[in-house]
């Protein structure tokens, strides 16, 4: 199948089904990228790190990056547009009904079930990346220190990414 067609279908479906923002998009994209053989999980983890430490929404950064790696500049623009479009159209339509519809009990019930499912699938994405990231004790140590820094001092991702890059050069 043509790469642009693949990118279009892939990113439209991610934009249509990924509830829960950047990290949910990440779990969908990880699935697509590996299934379609676009890149390895290691390479994808590198792109996540770059997307988290550069300005802009993570999912847009990731879409631009994966699109560029597979289809050049046209691929980058296509992936970004495709991943954004479903949400933009839906929210514009939704804006017409706005809060009446949103606050109805059946709709709230649906979201109450949907949110835990999203938590589970984001945790699964972390698991898959952990499988390739935890290659030795130093990697586990870096992850543990990062968790502590986030939990105790809410250290910004940029500093964690920079610090773990230095730790990687020193200890790997």
């Amino acid at each position, binding site marked *: 199948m043509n790469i642009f067609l693949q990118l279009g279908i892939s990113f439209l479906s991610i934009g249509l089904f990924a509830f829960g*923002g950047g*990290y949910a998009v990440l779990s969908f994209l990880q699935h697509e990228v590996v299934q379609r053989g676009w890149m390895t999980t290691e390479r994808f983890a590198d792109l996540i790190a770059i997307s*988290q430490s550069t300005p802009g929404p993570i999912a847009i950064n990731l879409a631009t990056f994966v699109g*560029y790696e597979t289809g050049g500049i046209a691929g980058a623009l296509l992936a970004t547009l495709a991943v954004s479009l479903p949400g933009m159209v839906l929210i514009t339509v*939704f804006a017409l009904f706005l809060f009446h519809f949103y606050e109805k009990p059946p709709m709230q019930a649906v979201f109450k079930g949907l949110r*835990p499912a999203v938590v589970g699938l984001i945790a699964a994405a972390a698991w898959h990346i952990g499988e390739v990231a935890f290659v030795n004790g130093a990697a586990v140590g870096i992850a543990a220190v990062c968790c502590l820094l986030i939990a105790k001092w809410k250290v910004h991702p940029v500093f964690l990414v920079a610090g773990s*890059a230095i730790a990687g050069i020193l200890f790997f």
Partner: protein
Amino acid sequence: MATSREYPTLLELFFVFLRVSASTIGGGYVMFPLLKREVVDGKGWMSDEEIVDYYALGQSIPGIIAMNTSTLIGYRKRGVPGAIAAALGMAAPSLVVILLIAAFLVPYFDHPWVQKAFAGIRAAVVSLIVMAVYQVAKQTVNSGSRIAIAVGSFLAIVGLHAHPVLMIVAGALLGFLLFHKEAPA
């Protein structure tokens, strides 16, 4: 939902969202305080309550929270052209920065130091995702049935390689069946 100020120009919408996007590193959850500072405190385009509701709606619709929320604010202010101007402003910094990195830094990816640095970063990425999901879980996975849905969705993907879309559909159905008799909280 009364709008508290006259219509901004499309260019003004574009640049406000461009500024928010360019100064946010780390995605949707980091963006909220910056968005509020620009749109509520700076421009007076809407109230505190409105921006929180818009943000909640942006999260409840599939897709990217930041894009959905900016589209909604843009639409509210200037209709469909406003929505497009806001979304373009939000996407522009990503496109420029990522394309520059992808075009110029990728050749250096194979250097051993870069490889080692990325091996370190991958470990940190796991922590970033785990801690983000923990924050969300504290608020949304707060009963036995919700824990069962979260664990079930995790195990189905890790153990059975189920497609994430299936988990979304199953979660929505279970939510409707389990919670539709609960009083709206």
